[in-house]
């Protein structure tokens, strides 16, 4: 090659080499820019992504707060035991597993059958299932040296939600039930991680299902902690990174009174009914009892499906909270309310007298409304009408009432609405109005309906809670406090004042006098309970008819069927003259109010007053 040509070639090469090397340098710059955008601009995102890759947060269950009565005695506590815990979803052959573990830890027939049953029922949802609870030190030692044989069983301390009074407080305290996860309380933990939760309770992740456990669930449940593990790409835990302690829930101080509740349960016995008692000074509910009842200990800690079903299907409906949801005609206990209406509206006054022949005839139709006593009570004024519970007097009073105004009046006393601040599923029950009757029964309101309401029969229904609230209103002369179960410091007590221009202090005094006479005088309908106590009690009893009958003879026929017998009702407050407690008692099919429900009310008042 000649020199010139060589020079041309060399230049040509230089240009082309520069081009290619330039391109590679551009490539390097592109890479550097991309790395810059990843490491500097996108750092926060990618750092988070790397953390999310390796960090695996697991919730740690918190203990629930405990529940106390008004004297600081514990009603529901967390009871720790050492339990033998199994992982039921990992055990393939349950029989051989049980056979293998029998020599190490003794299992009774009952425990085995219960475990097998629960295992079958719940194997797919349970992370843990307790095989034997409350192990002895010896059993723990025996298991520990052989634990390598049982990969899917281990011993650990677990808590149980336990009440020392599992039956008598069941409706008011309520029970807890298992939930799958609680991610609403910890949105930062992915839902799928809840399967790895560290449990504190033998029954798993629980939340309040009924009663105070449900109403105050947020207050009681505390804050779950979390443990963060470092996890590798295969999903194995490498090491724990951090641990946040769970925060135990706050304790709950209630107005309930163990002794009074015990009295209510004891004296109601196995009859169906309800007792509610209210502390007049604070509005605190001291007693809220419904019978029949069930064990919250069993329900809260894993009841078998069968037992649960049999409770559900029980004809006496033990789950039904009669104190808050039972709808009963108030019967004669409504008479003070009707009397208040008559006085406020100048239909009657304390001096007005009428003759009680034992029945009232509706002028429009001639329909006869009978009193409870044949022949009547002779001449009655309002005071005597309360004492002897004259139906005729109140028939006649109600006859002159305007139904709209009467309904409003009853509503102002708390009927037809929820009266408790923090009760679980309280039923507002019902105060009838002409509109209601027209829309539901497609019939017009007739005078007879109003007359029936005068003695608390007919469409008007109330709950024992409302009756107790009503008793409290009467006892405090209209200055009662809205009832509540829990005495929370920050909870404002709301004074529910009832007043009416036509009903002044002297009316209140006379009303108290009359209601005192119902129990304490020789003529009172509830005088049979007069001697059960050493303080004075005012009240009004009632007998709610379930079937409307014209004669005593007809009732004798009905009596033979227990479920059609009259309900026995009383409202009472004492000790007079400065009452501190009000109480209501309803006993289903108990018949005569004063004599049947009365003693229960007195016993409850006694245990509240004599503390």
């Amino acid at each position, binding site marked *: 090659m000649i020199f010139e040509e060589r020079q041309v070639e060399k230049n040509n090469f230089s240009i082309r080499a520069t081009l290619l090397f330039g391109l590679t340098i551009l490539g390097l710059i592109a890479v550097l820019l991309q790395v810059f955008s990843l490491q500097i601009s996108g750092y926060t995102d990618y750092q988070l992504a*790397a953390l999310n890759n390796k960090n695996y947060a697991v919730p740690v269950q918190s203990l629930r707060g405990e529940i106390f009565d008004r004297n600081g005695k514990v009603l529901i506590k967390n009871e720790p035991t050492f339990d033998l815990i199994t992982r039921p979803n990992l055990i393939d052959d349950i029989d051989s597993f049980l056979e293998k573990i029998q020599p190490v830890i003794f299992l009774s027939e009952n425990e085995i059958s219960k475990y097998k049953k629960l295992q079958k029922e719940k194997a797919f949802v349970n992370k843990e299932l307790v095989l034997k609870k409350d192990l002895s030190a010896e059993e723990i030692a025996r298991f520990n040296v052989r634990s390598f044989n049982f990969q899917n069983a281990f011993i650990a301390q677990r808590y149980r939600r336990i009440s020392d009074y599992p039956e008598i407080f069941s409706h008011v305290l309520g029970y807890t039930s298992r939930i799958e996860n609680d991610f609403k309380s910890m949105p930062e933990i992915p839902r799928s991680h809840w399967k790895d939760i560290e449990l504190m309770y033998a029954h798993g992740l629980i939340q309040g299902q009924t009663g105070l456990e449900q109403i105050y669930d947020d207050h009681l449940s505390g804050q779950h902690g979390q443990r963060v593990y470092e996890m590798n790409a295969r999903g194995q835990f490498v090491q724990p990174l951090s641990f946040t302690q769970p925060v135990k829930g706050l304790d709950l101080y209630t107005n309930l009174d163990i002794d009074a509740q015990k009295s209510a349960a004891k004296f109601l016995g196995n009859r169906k009914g309800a007792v509610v008692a209210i502390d007049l000074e604070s509005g605190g509910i001291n007693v809220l009892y419904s019978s029949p009842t069930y064990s919250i200990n069993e329900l809260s800690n894993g009841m078998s499906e069968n037992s649960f079903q049999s409770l559900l299907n029980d004809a006496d409906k033990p789950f039904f909270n009669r104190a808050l949801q039972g709808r009963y005609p108030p019967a004669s206990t409504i008479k003070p309310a009707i009397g208040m209406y008559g006085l406020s509206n100048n239909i009657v006054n304390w001096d007005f007298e009428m003759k009680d022949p034992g029945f009232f005839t509706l002028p429009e139709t001639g329909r006869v409304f009978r009193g409870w006593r044949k022949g009547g009570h002779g001449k009655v004024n309002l005071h005597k009408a309360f004492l002897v519970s004259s139906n005729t007097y109140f028939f006649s009073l109600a006859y002159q009432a305007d139904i709209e105004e009467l309904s409003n009046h009853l509503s102002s006393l708390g009927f037809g609405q929820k009266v408790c601040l923090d009760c679980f599923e309280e039923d507002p029950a019902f105060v009838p109005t002409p509109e209601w009757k027209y829309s539901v029964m497609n019939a017009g309101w007739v005078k007879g309906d109003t007359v029936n309401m005068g003695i608390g029969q007919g469409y008007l229904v109330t709950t024992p809670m409302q009756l107790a609230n009503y008793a409290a209103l009467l006892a405090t002369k209209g200055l009662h406090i809205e009832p509540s179960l829990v005495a929370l410091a920050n909870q404002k007590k709301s004074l529910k004042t009832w007043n009416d221009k036509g009903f002044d202090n002297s009316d209140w005094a006379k009303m108290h006098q009359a209601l005192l006479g119902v129990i304490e005088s020789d003529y009172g309908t509830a005088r049979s309970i007069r001697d059960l106590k050493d303080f004075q009690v005012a009240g009004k009893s009632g007998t709610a008819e379930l079937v409307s009958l014209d004669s005593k003879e007809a009732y004798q026929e009905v009596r033979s069927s227990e479920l059609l017998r009259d309900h026995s009702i009383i409202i009472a407050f004492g000790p007079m003259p400065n009452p501190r407690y009000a109480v209501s008692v309803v006993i289903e099919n108990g018949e005569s109010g004063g004599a049947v429900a009365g003693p229960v009310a007195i016993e409850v008042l006694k245990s509240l007053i004599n503390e």
Partner: protein
Amino acid sequence: MNKPLQKIYFDPYLFFSLFLLSTLGLFFLFSASNADISIVSKQLVYIVVGLTIMIVVSQPDPDIFRRTSGLFLIFSLLLLGITYLIGPEINGAQRWVRVGPFSFQSSELLKLALPIFLANFLFDKKLPIQRKEIIISLLIIFCCFFFVFRQPDLGTALIIACSGLFVLFLSGLSWTFMGGSFILLLISSPFIWNILLQPFQRQRIATFFNPESDPFGASWNIIQSKVAIGSGGLFGKGFGEGSQTQLNFLPETETDFIFSVIGEEFGFLGVLLLLSIYLFILLRCFYLALSARDRFCRLVIGGLSLTFAANLIINLCMVVGLLPVVGMPLPFISKGGSSLMSLFLAFGIIVSMGTHKKFLPQ
């Protein structure tokens, strides 16, 4: 034979930068392999042997490579053929030839043999290169590409094709010809996509363009690599502290994705240092190519160093998410004897071509 000590042909710039690079690589490999000493010590042996090969190979006059280039190419192709027939199948691909305890990736040699052969074929041709020579060159390039591609090893095949095309381009391929073939390639791309590419290769390319479509499947590698690099930040998480690497979220840390390990543990500054060393090596090669004694040496230095550059850029772009995933190691850093040996061999030849000056009359 009684001459004074012969001159040692040696380029200190390349030698020390490669020494630095491969030594740093040992540290990176230590972390990437979760502190596997046996892998690191094996790599150390390769580096020592490689540096020795480099020095030895740079001693003879470039003429010897020119004269043996034909034999070298035939030998490389034969080796490839043997692999094809008897090589063990690893991950569905036959790439390795086993000699005693050593196994060698046979296609690595072709990366050297092809550009040297083409440089020899083209260095004395008149400018511009005639159509006949172009066609012969392209045929040879295609044959080499095809053999490796069938292994199947798309990454190496592309690099081999590049190594040949670089030489062809540097030796003066006409611009009109290149323009025409580029258009032809565009037109035939659907054919290449549908017929030539294996399903897994097609999927890799597809997931590259839409990585979120399948975060736990094929695009896992790209996503985890980006997370590793991005989470390194400016200073990195520290040696052995990269969670993506140490907890195995990052795949293939010792080979293809070792750059992500560096990015995660040493951050942007580490990356900057590493790329500076690579840039320095490339610039030194560029200088040697321009100042080489004749056209043959220029073409060989250009072809070999650009092949190294392509290898580097493809790996980097793949790992940072600028290119689809193709199997390609990071030169001088990734684990693997074959790659290291052929790289040191290539740089030995480069040094030889760059340091031997014009024939001096004896």
